[in-house]
Protein backbone atom coordinates (compact mmCIF):
# COMPACT_ATOMS: atom_id res chain seq x y z
CA UNK A 1 0.00 0.00 0.00
CA UNK A 2 2.83 2.32 0.96
CA UNK A 3 4.66 1.48 -2.28
CA UNK A 4 1.49 1.91 -4.28
CA UNK A 5 0.70 5.37 -2.93
CA UNK A 6 4.32 6.40 -3.50
CA UNK A 7 4.00 5.20 -7.08
CA UNK A 8 0.74 7.11 -7.54
CA UNK A 9 2.40 10.21 -6.15
CA UNK A 10 5.32 9.76 -8.53
CA UNK A 11 3.03 9.30 -11.52
CA UNK A 12 1.17 12.51 -10.67
CA UNK A 13 4.47 14.35 -10.25
CA UNK A 14 5.69 12.86 -13.53
CA UNK A 15 2.60 13.94 -15.45
CA UNK A 16 2.82 17.47 -14.03
CA UNK A 17 6.53 17.65 -14.85
CA UNK A 18 5.73 16.37 -18.33
CA UNK A 19 3.13 19.07 -18.84
CA UNK A 20 5.72 21.72 -17.99
CA UNK A 21 8.03 20.16 -20.58
CA UNK A 22 5.18 20.24 -23.10
CA UNK A 23 4.74 23.94 -22.37
CA UNK A 24 8.37 24.61 -23.29
CA UNK A 25 8.42 22.18 -26.24
CA UNK A 26 5.40 23.17 -28.35
CA UNK A 27 6.99 26.41 -29.55
CA UNK A 28 10.16 24.57 -30.56
CA UNK A 29 8.27 21.94 -32.52
CA UNK A 30 6.12 24.54 -34.32
CA UNK A 31 9.18 26.43 -35.56
CA UNK A 32 10.83 23.19 -36.58
CA UNK A 33 7.76 21.96 -38.41
CA UNK A 34 7.33 25.12 -40.47
CA UNK A 35 10.91 25.97 -41.41
CA UNK A 36 13.13 22.99 -40.50
CA UNK A 37 15.06 25.04 -37.94
CA UNK A 38 15.94 23.70 -34.52
CA UNK A 39 16.32 26.84 -32.49
CA UNK A 40 19.22 26.08 -30.17
CA UNK A 41 18.50 29.39 -28.42
CA UNK A 42 15.01 28.22 -27.48
CA UNK A 43 16.00 27.92 -23.80
CA UNK A 44 17.35 31.47 -23.88
CA UNK A 45 14.00 32.71 -25.23
CA UNK A 46 12.52 31.05 -22.13
CA UNK A 47 15.09 32.79 -19.96
CA UNK A 48 14.20 36.15 -21.55
CA UNK A 49 10.52 35.47 -20.90
CA UNK A 50 11.21 34.70 -17.24
CA UNK A 51 13.21 37.90 -16.76
CA UNK A 52 10.45 39.87 -18.50
CA UNK A 53 7.91 38.31 -16.15
CA UNK A 54 10.07 39.14 -13.13
CA UNK A 55 10.28 42.74 -14.35
CA UNK A 56 6.49 42.93 -14.70
CA UNK A 57 6.06 41.37 -11.26
CA UNK A 58 8.30 44.07 -9.80
CA UNK A 59 5.97 46.64 -11.41
CA UNK A 60 3.05 44.97 -9.66
CA UNK A 61 1.76 42.70 -12.45
CA UNK A 62 2.05 39.10 -11.23
CA UNK A 63 3.03 36.14 -13.44
CA UNK A 64 -0.56 35.13 -14.20
CA UNK A 65 -1.89 38.55 -15.27
CA UNK A 66 1.43 39.39 -16.86
CA UNK A 67 1.33 36.26 -19.03
CA UNK A 68 -0.39 37.82 -22.08
CA UNK A 69 1.98 40.78 -21.93
CA UNK A 70 5.05 38.54 -21.79
CA UNK A 71 3.68 36.36 -24.59
CA UNK A 72 3.04 39.45 -26.75
CA UNK A 73 6.51 40.84 -26.01
CA UNK A 74 8.13 37.52 -26.94
CA UNK A 75 6.02 37.37 -30.11
CA UNK A 76 7.42 40.73 -31.22
CA UNK A 77 10.91 39.62 -30.23
CA UNK A 78 10.54 36.40 -32.21
CA UNK A 79 9.33 38.19 -35.33
CA UNK A 80 12.23 40.64 -35.14
CA UNK A 81 14.77 37.84 -34.62
CA UNK A 82 13.35 36.06 -37.65
CA UNK A 83 13.26 39.15 -39.89
CA UNK A 84 16.73 40.35 -38.95
CA UNK A 85 18.59 37.10 -38.39
CA UNK A 86 17.03 33.69 -39.02
CA UNK A 87 15.90 34.70 -42.53
CA UNK A 88 19.55 35.17 -43.48
CA UNK A 89 20.54 31.84 -41.93
CA UNK A 90 17.94 30.05 -44.04
CA UNK A 91 19.58 31.44 -47.18
CA UNK A 92 22.96 29.90 -46.21
CA UNK A 93 24.17 26.30 -46.06
CA UNK A 94 22.15 23.90 -43.85
CA UNK A 95 24.54 24.06 -40.89
CA UNK A 96 24.19 27.87 -40.76
CA UNK A 97 20.97 27.54 -38.75
CA UNK A 98 22.68 25.26 -36.21
CA UNK A 99 25.63 27.63 -35.80
CA UNK A 100 23.52 30.78 -35.96
CA UNK A 101 21.02 29.80 -33.28
CA UNK A 102 23.92 28.44 -31.22
CA UNK A 103 25.54 31.89 -31.48
CA UNK A 104 22.26 33.46 -30.40
CA UNK A 105 22.28 31.15 -27.36
CA UNK A 106 25.78 32.30 -26.39
CA UNK A 107 24.93 35.96 -27.03
CA UNK A 108 21.71 35.95 -24.98
CA UNK A 109 23.30 34.08 -22.08
CA UNK A 110 26.20 36.52 -22.08
CA UNK A 111 23.89 39.54 -22.15
CA UNK A 112 21.81 38.12 -19.28
CA UNK A 113 24.94 37.54 -17.22
CA UNK A 114 26.31 40.98 -17.99
CA UNK A 115 23.04 42.78 -17.25
CA UNK A 116 21.38 40.72 -14.52
CA UNK A 117 24.46 38.87 -13.08
CA UNK A 118 24.14 35.21 -12.13
CA UNK A 119 21.87 35.94 -9.13
CA UNK A 120 18.54 34.19 -8.87
CA UNK A 121 15.59 36.54 -9.43
CA UNK A 122 12.11 35.58 -8.33
CA UNK A 123 8.76 37.30 -8.63
CA UNK A 124 7.84 38.92 -5.29
CA UNK A 125 5.00 37.04 -3.54
CA UNK A 126 4.05 34.72 -6.38
CA UNK A 127 0.55 33.21 -6.10
CA UNK A 128 -0.25 29.47 -5.81
CA UNK A 129 2.46 28.54 -3.34
CA UNK A 130 0.41 26.06 -1.27
CA UNK A 131 -0.03 22.32 -1.63
CA UNK A 132 -3.25 20.61 -2.57
CA UNK A 133 -4.07 17.37 -0.70
CA UNK A 134 -6.22 14.84 -2.52
CA UNK A 135 -6.42 11.66 -0.44
CA UNK A 136 -2.89 10.30 -0.33
CA UNK A 137 -1.72 12.65 -3.08
CA UNK A 138 0.03 15.94 -2.35
CA UNK A 139 0.11 18.27 -5.36
CA UNK A 140 1.94 21.60 -5.38
CA UNK A 141 -0.55 24.24 -6.57
CA UNK A 142 2.05 25.90 -8.78
CA UNK A 143 2.65 22.63 -10.65
CA UNK A 144 -1.08 22.19 -11.09
CA UNK A 145 -1.51 25.69 -12.54
CA UNK A 146 1.47 25.14 -14.84
CA UNK A 147 -0.01 21.83 -15.97
CA UNK A 148 -3.40 23.35 -16.72
CA UNK A 149 -1.68 26.19 -18.55
CA UNK A 150 0.24 23.67 -20.64
CA UNK A 151 -2.93 21.81 -21.65
CA UNK A 152 -4.75 25.04 -22.57
CA UNK A 153 -1.77 26.37 -24.53
CA UNK A 154 -1.15 23.14 -26.42
CA UNK A 155 -4.84 22.83 -27.29
CA UNK A 156 -4.96 26.45 -28.44
CA UNK A 157 -1.87 26.05 -30.61
CA UNK A 158 -3.19 22.80 -32.08
CA UNK A 159 -6.55 24.42 -32.87
CA UNK A 160 -4.79 27.40 -34.46
CA UNK A 161 -2.65 25.26 -36.73
CA UNK A 162 -5.48 22.85 -37.62
CA UNK A 163 -8.46 25.13 -38.03
CA UNK A 164 -7.43 28.65 -39.05
CA UNK A 165 -6.52 29.86 -42.51
CA UNK A 166 -3.07 31.02 -41.31
CA UNK A 167 -2.56 27.64 -39.66
CA UNK A 168 -3.39 25.95 -42.95
CA UNK A 169 -0.86 28.16 -44.68
CA UNK A 170 1.73 27.13 -42.09
CA UNK A 171 1.06 23.47 -42.73
CA UNK A 172 1.32 24.11 -46.44
CA UNK A 173 4.71 25.77 -46.01
CA UNK A 174 5.82 22.91 -43.76
CA UNK A 175 4.83 20.38 -46.39
CA UNK A 176 6.30 22.00 -49.48
CA UNK A 177 7.81 25.46 -49.42
CA UNK A 178 7.99 25.88 -53.17
CA UNK A 179 4.46 24.66 -53.84
CA UNK A 180 3.18 26.95 -51.07
CA UNK A 181 4.89 29.90 -52.75
CA UNK A 182 3.24 28.98 -56.05
CA UNK A 183 -0.14 28.92 -54.30
CA UNK A 184 0.40 32.57 -53.40
CA UNK A 185 1.49 32.06 -49.79
CA UNK A 186 4.03 34.60 -48.56
CA UNK A 187 6.54 32.13 -47.08
CA UNK A 188 8.61 34.81 -45.36
CA UNK A 189 5.50 36.17 -43.63
CA UNK A 190 4.41 32.68 -42.51
CA UNK A 191 7.91 31.87 -41.26
CA UNK A 192 8.11 35.11 -39.29
CA UNK A 193 4.67 34.46 -37.86
CA UNK A 194 5.60 30.91 -36.86
CA UNK A 195 8.81 32.09 -35.24
CA UNK A 196 6.87 34.77 -33.36
CA UNK A 197 4.21 32.31 -32.20
CA UNK A 198 6.90 29.83 -31.13
CA UNK A 199 8.48 32.60 -29.07
CA UNK A 200 5.09 33.62 -27.66
CA UNK A 201 4.54 30.03 -26.48
CA UNK A 202 7.82 30.21 -24.62
CA UNK A 203 6.71 33.58 -23.26
CA UNK A 204 3.64 31.96 -21.74
CA UNK A 205 5.78 29.07 -20.50
CA UNK A 206 8.25 31.43 -18.84
CA UNK A 207 5.50 33.29 -17.00
CA UNK A 208 4.04 30.06 -15.64
CA UNK A 209 7.43 28.56 -14.75
CA UNK A 210 8.12 31.62 -12.62
CA UNK A 211 5.53 30.26 -10.16
CA UNK A 212 7.95 27.54 -9.14
CA UNK A 213 11.37 28.65 -10.44
CA UNK A 214 13.61 31.70 -10.17
CA UNK A 215 15.11 33.31 -13.30
CA UNK A 216 18.87 33.16 -13.91
CA UNK A 217 21.02 33.37 -17.06
CA UNK A 218 21.31 29.62 -17.68
CA UNK A 219 17.81 28.65 -16.54
CA UNK A 220 16.84 27.73 -20.08
CA UNK A 221 19.61 25.22 -20.76
CA UNK A 222 18.15 22.22 -18.98
CA UNK A 223 14.62 22.95 -20.23
CA UNK A 224 15.86 23.34 -23.79
CA UNK A 225 17.81 20.08 -23.67
CA UNK A 226 14.72 18.30 -22.41
CA UNK A 227 12.64 20.03 -25.08
CA UNK A 228 14.96 18.75 -27.83
CA UNK A 229 14.46 15.22 -26.53
CA UNK A 230 10.69 15.71 -26.20
CA UNK A 231 10.38 17.09 -29.72
CA UNK A 232 12.49 14.29 -31.21
CA UNK A 233 10.49 11.72 -29.27
CA UNK A 234 7.15 13.08 -30.39
CA UNK A 235 8.30 13.67 -33.94
CA UNK A 236 9.83 17.00 -34.98
CA UNK A 237 7.02 19.32 -36.01
CA UNK A 238 4.16 17.44 -34.38
CA UNK A 239 2.29 19.39 -31.69
CA UNK A 240 0.32 16.47 -30.29
CA UNK A 241 3.54 14.43 -30.50
CA UNK A 242 5.27 17.02 -28.31
CA UNK A 243 2.53 16.61 -25.69
CA UNK A 244 2.81 12.81 -25.70
CA UNK A 245 6.62 12.95 -25.72
CA UNK A 246 6.65 15.45 -22.86
CA UNK A 247 4.40 13.30 -20.67
CA UNK A 248 6.62 10.28 -21.35
CA UNK A 249 9.79 12.22 -20.55
CA UNK A 250 8.25 13.71 -17.40
CA UNK A 251 7.36 10.25 -16.15
CA UNK A 252 10.76 8.82 -17.09
CA UNK A 253 12.60 11.62 -15.33
CA UNK A 254 10.58 11.50 -12.11
CA UNK A 255 10.53 7.69 -11.89
CA UNK A 256 14.20 7.47 -12.88
CA UNK A 257 15.17 10.07 -10.31
CA UNK A 258 13.30 8.19 -7.59
CA UNK A 259 14.14 4.57 -8.37
CA UNK A 260 17.70 5.05 -9.69
CA UNK A 261 19.16 8.14 -8.05
CA UNK A 262 18.62 11.88 -8.46
CA UNK A 263 22.02 12.12 -10.16
CA UNK A 264 20.88 9.67 -12.83
CA UNK A 265 17.45 11.13 -13.49
CA UNK A 266 18.42 12.35 -16.97
CA UNK A 267 19.87 8.98 -18.00
CA UNK A 268 16.56 7.37 -19.06
CA UNK A 269 15.63 10.62 -20.82
CA UNK A 270 18.76 10.69 -22.99
CA UNK A 271 18.62 6.94 -23.57
CA UNK A 272 15.05 7.40 -24.78
CA UNK A 273 16.24 10.06 -27.25
CA UNK A 274 19.00 7.86 -28.66
CA UNK A 275 16.75 4.82 -28.96
CA UNK A 276 14.01 6.80 -30.69
CA UNK A 277 16.20 8.66 -33.19
CA UNK A 278 18.06 5.49 -34.07
CA UNK A 279 15.07 3.15 -34.37
CA UNK A 280 12.26 5.49 -35.32
CA UNK A 281 13.78 8.75 -36.57
CA UNK A 282 10.40 10.23 -37.41
CA UNK A 283 9.43 10.08 -33.71
CA UNK A 284 6.47 8.40 -32.10
CA UNK A 285 3.81 10.48 -33.85
CA UNK A 286 5.82 12.08 -36.64
CA UNK A 287 5.22 11.51 -40.33
CA UNK A 288 7.53 10.84 -43.29
Amino acid sequence: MEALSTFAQLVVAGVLTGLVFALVSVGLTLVYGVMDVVNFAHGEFLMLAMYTAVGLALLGVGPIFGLPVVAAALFVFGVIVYRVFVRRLLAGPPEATVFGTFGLLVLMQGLAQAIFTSDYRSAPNPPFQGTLHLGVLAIPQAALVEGIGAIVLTAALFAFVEFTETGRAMRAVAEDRVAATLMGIDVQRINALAFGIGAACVGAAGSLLLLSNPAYPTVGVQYALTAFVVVALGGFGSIQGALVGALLIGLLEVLGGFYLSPELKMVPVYLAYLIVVLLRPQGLLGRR
Partner: protein
Amino acid sequence: MRAHLLALGAIVVVGAVAAFGLHSQVTLELLFTFLLYAVLGQSWNWISGYAGNVSFGHAIFFACGAYAAAMLVAAGFSPWLAFPAGALVAGLLAVITGFPTLALRGHYFSIATIAVAALVDAFVRTTPWFNGANGFEEPIRNGWGAMQFAQKTNYVLIALVLFAFVQLATIVLERSRLGYYLRALRANHAAAAAVGIDERRWKLIAFAWSAVMASAAGVLYAQDTLFVDPPSVLGLSVSIDIALIGVVGGIGTVWGPAVGALIYVALAKGVALQLGGTGKGYDLVIYGALICVIAALRPRGIVGSLVDASRRRRGARIANDGAAPVAERAA
Protein backbone atom coordinates in the same frame (compact mmCIF):
# COMPACT_ATOMS: atom_id res chain seq x y z
CA MET B 1 49.80 23.14 -49.71
CA ARG B 2 53.25 24.73 -49.75
CA ALA B 3 51.81 27.91 -48.30
CA HIS B 4 50.25 25.90 -45.48
CA LEU B 5 53.54 24.16 -44.72
CA LEU B 6 55.47 27.43 -44.78
CA ALA B 7 52.96 29.04 -42.44
CA LEU B 8 53.13 26.08 -40.09
CA GLY B 9 56.93 26.14 -40.12
CA ALA B 10 56.92 29.85 -39.33
CA ILE B 11 54.50 29.37 -36.44
CA VAL B 12 56.55 26.51 -34.99
CA VAL B 13 59.76 28.59 -35.16
CA VAL B 14 58.11 31.64 -33.61
CA GLY B 15 56.47 29.42 -30.96
CA ALA B 16 59.76 27.75 -30.05
CA VAL B 17 61.57 31.09 -29.86
CA ALA B 18 58.78 32.45 -27.67
CA ALA B 19 58.87 29.35 -25.44
CA PHE B 20 62.59 29.84 -24.74
CA GLY B 21 62.71 33.62 -24.98
CA LEU B 22 59.71 34.62 -22.89
CA HIS B 23 60.08 34.48 -19.14
CA SER B 24 56.65 35.65 -18.05
CA GLN B 25 54.86 32.54 -16.80
CA VAL B 26 51.52 34.24 -17.45
CA THR B 27 52.34 34.84 -21.12
CA LEU B 28 53.64 31.30 -21.52
CA GLU B 29 50.48 29.91 -19.94
CA LEU B 30 48.44 31.94 -22.43
CA LEU B 31 50.51 30.58 -25.29
CA PHE B 32 49.99 27.05 -23.95
CA THR B 33 46.24 27.60 -23.64
CA PHE B 34 46.11 28.95 -27.18
CA LEU B 35 47.90 25.87 -28.58
CA LEU B 36 45.72 23.50 -26.55
CA TYR B 37 42.50 25.14 -27.75
CA ALA B 38 43.78 25.24 -31.32
CA VAL B 39 44.29 21.46 -31.14
CA LEU B 40 40.83 20.96 -29.62
CA GLY B 41 39.25 23.22 -32.22
CA GLN B 42 40.99 21.33 -35.02
CA SER B 43 39.88 18.01 -33.57
CA TRP B 44 36.29 19.28 -33.56
CA ASN B 45 36.78 20.67 -37.07
CA TRP B 46 37.52 17.22 -38.50
CA ILE B 47 34.13 15.83 -37.67
CA SER B 48 32.04 19.02 -37.53
CA GLY B 49 33.75 21.07 -40.22
CA TYR B 50 35.09 18.69 -42.84
CA ALA B 51 32.55 15.90 -42.28
CA GLY B 52 29.67 18.27 -41.43
CA ASN B 53 28.43 16.43 -38.32
CA VAL B 54 28.22 19.22 -35.75
CA SER B 55 29.23 17.84 -32.35
CA PHE B 56 28.17 19.46 -29.09
CA GLY B 57 29.66 16.63 -27.01
CA HIS B 58 33.32 16.76 -27.91
CA ALA B 59 34.41 17.09 -24.26
CA ILE B 60 34.11 13.33 -23.76
CA PHE B 61 37.14 12.72 -25.95
CA PHE B 62 39.11 15.48 -24.25
CA ALA B 63 38.14 13.84 -20.94
CA CYS B 64 39.47 10.45 -22.14
CA GLY B 65 43.00 11.86 -22.28
CA ALA B 66 42.68 13.91 -19.09
CA TYR B 67 41.32 10.97 -17.08
CA ALA B 68 43.85 8.57 -18.64
CA ALA B 69 46.70 10.81 -17.45
CA ALA B 70 45.29 11.39 -13.96
CA MET B 71 44.39 7.73 -13.43
CA LEU B 72 47.69 6.35 -14.75
CA VAL B 73 49.59 8.72 -12.46
CA ALA B 74 47.38 7.72 -9.52
CA ALA B 75 48.17 4.06 -10.27
CA GLY B 76 51.90 4.79 -10.35
CA PHE B 77 52.49 4.79 -14.11
CA SER B 78 54.05 7.40 -16.34
CA PRO B 79 51.65 10.03 -17.73
CA TRP B 80 53.31 9.58 -21.15
CA LEU B 81 51.45 6.28 -21.39
CA ALA B 82 48.26 8.34 -21.35
CA PHE B 83 48.84 9.39 -24.96
CA PRO B 84 48.38 5.85 -26.34
CA ALA B 85 45.94 4.77 -23.60
CA GLY B 86 43.73 7.85 -23.94
CA ALA B 87 43.89 7.63 -27.72
CA LEU B 88 42.78 4.01 -27.62
CA VAL B 89 39.83 4.69 -25.31
CA ALA B 90 38.81 7.86 -27.17
CA GLY B 91 39.07 6.13 -30.54
CA LEU B 92 36.99 3.19 -29.34
CA LEU B 93 34.43 5.52 -27.78
CA ALA B 94 34.21 7.41 -31.08
CA VAL B 95 33.69 4.21 -33.06
CA ILE B 96 31.12 2.81 -30.63
CA THR B 97 29.09 6.03 -30.40
CA GLY B 98 29.70 7.06 -34.00
CA PHE B 99 28.63 3.79 -35.57
CA PRO B 100 24.93 4.30 -34.83
CA THR B 101 24.83 8.12 -34.69
CA LEU B 102 26.98 9.36 -37.60
CA ALA B 103 24.27 8.53 -40.09
CA LEU B 104 21.96 10.99 -38.31
CA ARG B 105 21.57 14.31 -40.12
CA GLY B 106 21.87 17.88 -38.92
CA HIS B 107 20.46 18.60 -35.48
CA TYR B 108 19.59 14.90 -34.92
CA PHE B 109 23.31 14.19 -34.71
CA SER B 110 24.06 17.36 -32.70
CA ILE B 111 21.46 16.53 -30.06
CA ALA B 112 22.63 12.90 -30.00
CA THR B 113 26.15 14.11 -29.14
CA ILE B 114 24.70 16.12 -26.23
CA ALA B 115 22.84 13.00 -25.08
CA VAL B 116 25.90 10.74 -25.35
CA ALA B 117 28.06 13.27 -23.50
CA ALA B 118 25.48 13.55 -20.73
CA LEU B 119 25.35 9.75 -20.41
CA VAL B 120 29.15 9.52 -20.20
CA ASP B 121 29.13 12.32 -17.62
CA ALA B 122 26.54 10.50 -15.49
CA PHE B 123 28.51 7.26 -15.81
CA VAL B 124 31.79 8.87 -14.68
CA ARG B 125 30.11 10.75 -11.82
CA THR B 126 28.57 7.61 -10.38
CA THR B 127 31.44 5.14 -10.91
CA PRO B 128 33.82 4.75 -7.92
CA TRP B 129 36.61 3.69 -10.31
CA PHE B 130 36.61 7.26 -11.68
CA ASN B 131 36.40 8.74 -8.15
CA GLY B 132 32.87 9.93 -9.01
CA ALA B 133 32.33 13.65 -8.65
CA ASN B 134 35.61 14.13 -6.74
CA GLY B 135 37.92 13.45 -9.65
CA PHE B 136 41.67 13.15 -9.34
CA GLU B 137 44.35 15.44 -8.00
CA GLU B 138 47.86 14.64 -9.19
CA PRO B 139 50.79 14.74 -6.73
CA ILE B 140 53.28 17.51 -7.52
CA ARG B 141 56.51 16.25 -9.08
CA ASN B 142 58.99 17.63 -11.56
CA GLY B 143 60.77 16.57 -14.72
CA TRP B 144 60.24 15.02 -18.13
CA GLY B 145 59.49 11.55 -16.72
CA ALA B 146 56.53 12.89 -14.76
CA MET B 147 55.58 15.34 -17.55
CA GLN B 148 55.34 18.08 -14.94
CA PHE B 149 57.37 21.23 -15.00
CA ALA B 150 57.79 24.19 -12.68
CA GLN B 151 58.49 26.38 -15.72
CA LYS B 152 55.83 26.67 -18.43
CA THR B 153 58.39 26.56 -21.26
CA ASN B 154 58.31 22.77 -21.56
CA TYR B 155 54.50 22.67 -21.57
CA VAL B 156 54.52 25.12 -24.46
CA LEU B 157 57.07 22.96 -26.31
CA ILE B 158 55.00 19.77 -25.94
CA ALA B 159 51.84 21.64 -26.95
CA LEU B 160 53.69 23.08 -29.94
CA VAL B 161 54.70 19.60 -31.11
CA LEU B 162 51.12 18.41 -30.73
CA PHE B 163 49.79 21.48 -32.55
CA ALA B 164 52.26 20.99 -35.41
CA PHE B 165 51.30 17.32 -35.70
CA VAL B 166 47.58 18.07 -35.75
CA GLN B 167 47.98 20.89 -38.30
CA LEU B 168 50.16 18.69 -40.47
CA ALA B 169 47.56 15.93 -40.34
CA THR B 170 44.91 18.45 -41.41
CA ILE B 171 47.05 19.79 -44.27
CA VAL B 172 47.45 16.21 -45.47
CA LEU B 173 43.71 15.62 -44.95
CA GLU B 174 42.89 18.50 -47.31
CA ARG B 175 44.64 16.71 -50.16
CA SER B 176 43.78 13.13 -49.19
CA ARG B 177 41.09 10.73 -50.32
CA LEU B 178 39.49 11.02 -46.87
CA GLY B 179 39.35 14.81 -47.13
CA TYR B 180 37.73 14.79 -50.57
CA TYR B 181 35.25 12.11 -49.52
CA LEU B 182 34.26 13.98 -46.37
CA ARG B 183 33.66 17.22 -48.24
CA ALA B 184 31.74 15.37 -50.92
CA LEU B 185 29.58 13.74 -48.23
CA ARG B 186 29.01 17.09 -46.57
CA ALA B 187 28.07 18.81 -49.80
CA ASN B 188 25.63 16.12 -50.89
CA HIS B 189 25.55 12.79 -49.11
CA ALA B 190 23.14 11.17 -51.58
CA ALA B 191 25.28 12.09 -54.59
CA ALA B 192 28.42 10.97 -52.75
CA ALA B 193 26.82 7.65 -51.87
CA ALA B 194 25.73 7.25 -55.48
CA VAL B 195 29.34 7.34 -56.66
CA GLY B 196 30.24 4.68 -54.11
CA ILE B 197 31.54 6.61 -51.10
CA ASP B 198 30.80 4.61 -47.96
CA GLU B 199 29.55 7.33 -45.60
CA ARG B 200 29.76 5.36 -42.38
CA ARG B 201 33.26 4.07 -43.01
CA TRP B 202 34.89 7.41 -43.85
CA LYS B 203 33.06 9.37 -41.21
CA LEU B 204 34.03 6.79 -38.57
CA ILE B 205 37.67 7.20 -39.55
CA ALA B 206 37.39 10.98 -39.27
CA PHE B 207 35.53 10.73 -35.96
CA ALA B 208 38.11 8.35 -34.46
CA TRP B 209 40.97 10.62 -35.56
CA SER B 210 39.17 13.61 -34.16
CA ALA B 211 38.73 11.80 -30.83
CA VAL B 212 42.40 10.81 -30.69
CA MET B 213 43.51 14.43 -31.19
CA ALA B 214 41.14 15.70 -28.48
CA SER B 215 42.39 13.01 -26.12
CA ALA B 216 46.01 14.10 -26.61
CA ALA B 217 44.99 17.65 -25.69
CA GLY B 218 43.32 16.20 -22.57
CA VAL B 219 46.58 14.57 -21.45
CA LEU B 220 48.40 17.91 -21.68
CA TYR B 221 45.58 19.67 -19.86
CA ALA B 222 45.72 17.19 -16.97
CA GLN B 223 49.52 17.51 -16.66
CA ASP B 224 49.26 21.31 -16.62
CA THR B 225 46.42 21.77 -14.13
CA LEU B 226 47.09 18.55 -12.17
CA PHE B 227 43.40 18.27 -11.41
CA VAL B 228 40.66 16.47 -13.30
CA ASP B 229 36.99 16.19 -12.37
CA PRO B 230 33.72 15.85 -14.32
CA PRO B 231 32.74 19.54 -14.59
CA SER B 232 36.21 20.73 -15.62
CA VAL B 233 36.75 18.27 -18.50
CA LEU B 234 33.38 16.62 -19.17
CA GLY B 235 30.73 19.32 -18.73
CA LEU B 236 28.46 20.64 -21.46
CA SER B 237 30.21 24.01 -21.16
CA VAL B 238 33.53 22.41 -22.16
CA SER B 239 31.92 20.96 -25.29
CA ILE B 240 30.32 24.34 -26.03
CA ASP B 241 33.70 26.10 -25.72
CA ILE B 242 35.30 23.64 -28.14
CA ALA B 243 32.51 24.17 -30.66
CA LEU B 244 32.77 27.95 -30.14
CA ILE B 245 36.47 27.92 -31.08
CA GLY B 246 35.76 25.78 -34.10
CA VAL B 247 32.95 27.95 -35.43
CA VAL B 248 34.42 31.41 -34.85
CA GLY B 249 37.54 30.85 -36.95
CA GLY B 250 35.77 29.03 -39.75
CA ILE B 251 34.72 25.44 -40.25
CA GLY B 252 36.33 23.09 -42.71
CA THR B 253 39.57 25.09 -43.08
CA VAL B 254 43.14 24.34 -41.98
CA TRP B 255 43.68 27.54 -40.02
CA GLY B 256 40.14 28.29 -38.83
CA PRO B 257 40.53 26.55 -35.45
CA ALA B 258 43.84 28.32 -34.74
CA VAL B 259 42.26 31.69 -35.53
CA GLY B 260 39.30 30.74 -33.33
CA ALA B 261 41.64 29.78 -30.48
CA LEU B 262 43.53 33.05 -30.88
CA ILE B 263 40.30 35.04 -30.64
CA TYR B 264 39.21 32.92 -27.68
CA VAL B 265 42.39 33.44 -25.69
CA ALA B 266 42.67 37.13 -26.61
CA LEU B 267 39.07 37.76 -25.60
CA ALA B 268 39.28 35.76 -22.38
CA LYS B 269 42.47 37.61 -21.45
CA GLY B 270 41.31 41.00 -22.71
CA VAL B 271 37.97 40.84 -20.97
CA ALA B 272 39.58 39.69 -17.72
CA LEU B 273 42.05 42.61 -17.89
CA GLN B 274 39.45 45.23 -18.74
CA LEU B 275 36.69 44.16 -16.42
CA GLY B 276 38.39 42.01 -13.81
CA GLY B 277 36.99 38.73 -12.61
CA THR B 278 33.45 40.14 -12.58
CA GLY B 279 33.51 40.58 -16.36
CA LYS B 280 31.90 37.18 -16.88
CA GLY B 281 29.31 37.50 -19.55
CA TYR B 282 30.95 40.17 -21.69
CA ASP B 283 33.19 37.62 -23.38
CA LEU B 284 30.12 35.50 -24.14
CA VAL B 285 28.41 38.54 -25.63
CA ILE B 286 31.33 39.09 -27.99
CA TYR B 287 31.62 35.42 -29.04
CA GLY B 288 27.87 35.17 -29.45
CA ALA B 289 27.67 38.32 -31.56
CA LEU B 290 30.65 37.17 -33.61
CA ILE B 291 29.12 33.75 -34.30
CA CYS B 292 25.76 35.32 -35.18
CA VAL B 293 27.34 37.74 -37.64
CA ILE B 294 29.51 35.03 -39.17
CA ALA B 295 26.61 32.58 -39.47
CA ALA B 296 24.34 35.19 -41.04
CA LEU B 297 26.78 36.91 -43.37
CA ARG B 298 29.75 34.58 -43.76
CA PRO B 299 28.66 31.02 -43.02
CA ARG B 300 32.16 29.76 -43.85
CA GLY B 301 33.76 31.68 -41.00
CA ILE B 302 36.65 34.12 -41.02
CA VAL B 303 39.21 31.86 -42.66
CA GLY B 304 36.66 30.33 -45.02
CA SER B 305 35.72 33.78 -46.27
CA LEU B 306 39.33 34.72 -46.82
CA VAL B 307 39.83 31.50 -48.78
CA ASP B 308 36.80 32.35 -50.92
CA ALA B 309 38.08 35.88 -51.49
CA SER B 310 41.50 34.69 -52.58
CA ARG B 311 39.96 32.14 -54.97
CA ARG B 312 37.78 34.86 -56.42
CA ARG B 313 40.80 37.06 -56.95
CA ARG B 314 42.56 34.32 -58.81
CA GLY B 315 39.51 34.02 -60.99
CA ALA B 316 39.02 30.42 -59.99
CA ARG B 317 35.56 29.00 -59.58
CA ILE B 318 34.25 29.92 -56.15
CA ALA B 319 34.14 26.91 -53.89
CA ASN B 320 30.54 25.98 -53.33
CA ASP B 321 30.74 24.41 -49.91
CA GLY B 322 33.19 21.64 -50.59
CA ALA B 323 31.77 20.74 -53.97
CA ALA B 324 34.43 22.66 -55.84
CA PRO B 325 37.51 20.83 -54.51
CA VAL B 326 36.11 17.58 -55.92
CA ALA B 327 35.54 19.26 -59.27
CA GLU B 328 39.02 20.77 -59.20
CA ARG B 329 40.50 17.37 -58.70
CA ALA B 330 38.58 15.91 -61.59
CA ALA B 331 39.69 18.70 -63.89
